[in-house]
């Protein structure tokens, strides 16, 4: 695609307002002024600080859950397993069958609404702290830093000609990345096939070819996204990043630079004390730590993932200078328009949180969550599918009777084996031939053929309605009532 056909032509940098305190979230306004300009490799500097700690806490929490949960046993099986073979989803005590697809869709809707709510209140905290893209990028960057050193060392290494040292450092980095990526791919597959079985298969070199394929596929995916593409995923590929403008409003939390206090920026040289000068010393730390390589001092930009690392960087600089923190801080557009760097009193904070959009999202969310919970709690833990046996629709049997054959599939969605009693009603004189008591294992299903006979004389030719009642022996309220039809061919 030629650059003039690309979505959202970039205004030339000069046209961007220089000192506007708030720039509405714009299309990519990058330093090179070109939406799809060749990417400048970003080598962020590492930084310590409050928000960096929060980010790392989130890395630990999310990854302990991801890598660990697959190994957690529950009632003699894997606690969370999307069993593709048996077509059953286990989420702790909850067993979902294909018939329960509505629950899964509800779960998705709940997550989406939750994301809307969080975005409206707190801006892109999802991006900065919880999105797998950010989390894996952080982990991969950590490996890179351990092996190749911090920003300046890495930039030197990039520029250096290939040497034995560079070669071994690169090999070590890519080897470590590949190991982490493979483990991630293995864990991913372990959510769809019991992970202990997969592990045993991998160790004995007997894993199925599709399992290996998906492990490698997901590993490659992780490696490329977290190792190489990084911020480009957020900038060019992520729909959420493009969509956020709709969820933002002047009360959403954003990372912003207090230009009133910071400008005019510049270093403090001796002999210039008298000059009016802002608090920003133009050390560029905020730019160097930014994983997306932007300058927050230009205002809110669409690339900013809200990781708040520039806050940590600037706070350190302000601490060193003995000036108050918060030249870069979390703020809202509304606070800034009021000429303040951030909300000051708790009243303002509450007013910022409680507003129609948030109330709307919250009540929608509450409504759907309670509906979900209600549906789950009142769910009958048994299901029955009735299929007529097509091979032998209806036939005459001994004693002048008509027989119809049905295929019943009985699914026990509870966590214990159950016995059920089958009865029919609605058709006078009809009787079940054969077994009427059926036992189904925990979270299991059983297919059984069922023959129903009626005296031929008592029925007019044609189709008749018949009901199957399935009743759990141990619990009177666990029952299903299903309709079927009975054919009298003559």
């Amino acid at each position, binding site marked *: *695609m*030629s650059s*003039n*056909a690309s*979505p959202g032509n970039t205004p030339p940098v000069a046209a961007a307002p220089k000192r506007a305190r708030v720039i509405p979230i714009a299309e990519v306004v990058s330093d090179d002024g070109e939406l*799809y300009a*060749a*990417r400048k490799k970003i080598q962020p500097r590492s930084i310590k600080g409050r928000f960096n700690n929060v980010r790392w806490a989130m890395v630990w929490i999310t990854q302990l859950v991801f890598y660990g949960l697959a190994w957690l046993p529950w009632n003699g099986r894997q606690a969370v397993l999307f069993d*593709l*073979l048996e*077509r059953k989803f286990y989420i702790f005590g909850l067993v979902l069958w*294909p018939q329960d*697809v509505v629950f*899964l869709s509800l779960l998705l809707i709940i997550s989406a609404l939750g994301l809307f709510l969080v975005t409206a209140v707190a801006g892109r905290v999802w991006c900065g702290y919880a999105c797998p893209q950010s989390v894996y990028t952080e982990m991969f960057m950590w490996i890179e830093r351990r092996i190749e050193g911090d920003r300046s060392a890495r930039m030197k290494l990039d520029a250096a000609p290939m040497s034995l040292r560079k070669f071994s450092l690169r090999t070590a980095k890519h080897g470590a990345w590949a190991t982490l990526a493979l483990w991630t791919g293995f864990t991913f597959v372990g959510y769809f*096939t019991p992970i202990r079985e997969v592990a045993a298969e991998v160790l004995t070199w007997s894993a*199925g070819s*599709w*399992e290996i*394929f*998906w492990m490698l596929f997901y590993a490659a995916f992780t490696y490329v996204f977290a190792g190489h*593409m990084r911020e*480009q995923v957020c*900038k*060019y*590929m992520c*729909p959420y990043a493009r969509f956020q403008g709709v969820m933002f409003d002047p009360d959403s939390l954003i990372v912003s630079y207090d230009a009133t206090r910071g400008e005019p920026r510049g270093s403090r040289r001796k002999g210039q004390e008298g000059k009016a000068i802002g608090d920003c010393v133009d050390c560029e730390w905020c730019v160097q730590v930014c994983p997306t390589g932007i300058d927050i001092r230009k205002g809110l930009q669409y690339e900013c993932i809200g990781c708040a690392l520039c806050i940590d960087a600037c706070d350190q600089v302000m601490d060193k200078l003995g000036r108050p923190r918060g030249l870069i801080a979390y703020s809202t557009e509304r606070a800034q328009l009021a000429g303040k760097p951030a909300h000051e009193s708790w009243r303002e904070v509450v007013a910022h949180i409680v507003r129609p959009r948030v109330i709307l999202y919250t009540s929608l969310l509450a409504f759907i969550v309670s509906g979900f919970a209600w549906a789950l709690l009142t769910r009958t833990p048994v299901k029955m599918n009735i299929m007529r046996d097509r091979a032998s629709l209806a036939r005459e049997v001994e004693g002048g009777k008509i027989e119809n054959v049905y295929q019943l599939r009985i699914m026990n969605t509870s966590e214990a084996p159950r016995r059920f009693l089958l009865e029919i009603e609605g058709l006078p004189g009809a009787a079940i031939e054969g077994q009427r008591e059926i036992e189904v294992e925990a979270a299991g299903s059983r297919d059984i053929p069922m023959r129903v006979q009626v005296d031929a004389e008592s029925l007019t030719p044609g189709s008749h309605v018949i009901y199957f009642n399935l009743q759990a022996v141990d619990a009177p309220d666990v029952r299903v009532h299903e309709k079927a039809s009975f054919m009298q061919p003559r």
Partner: protein
Amino acid sequence: MPGGGARLFALVSWPSFMVAAAAEAVFFSVINPQELYLLGEPVGFSPVATYSIGFFAFWGVTGASSLLTAWLAEKLPAR
């Protein structure tokens, strides 16, 4: 983002990947792979193979559509 080919690849492959994943989830949550027929015969592959092939089939279709859209968007006459 690097040169045109890689960019086009990212723009086409990624949205189609996500849509294919969604289509796969919806399709196979309502249809059991073992009840599928291929050219009049019941599908003989293992379920995992069917799921995987299904996914790539979806991805192929959504990818073709994305590619076409990208191409059309590029050829869009300037207004």
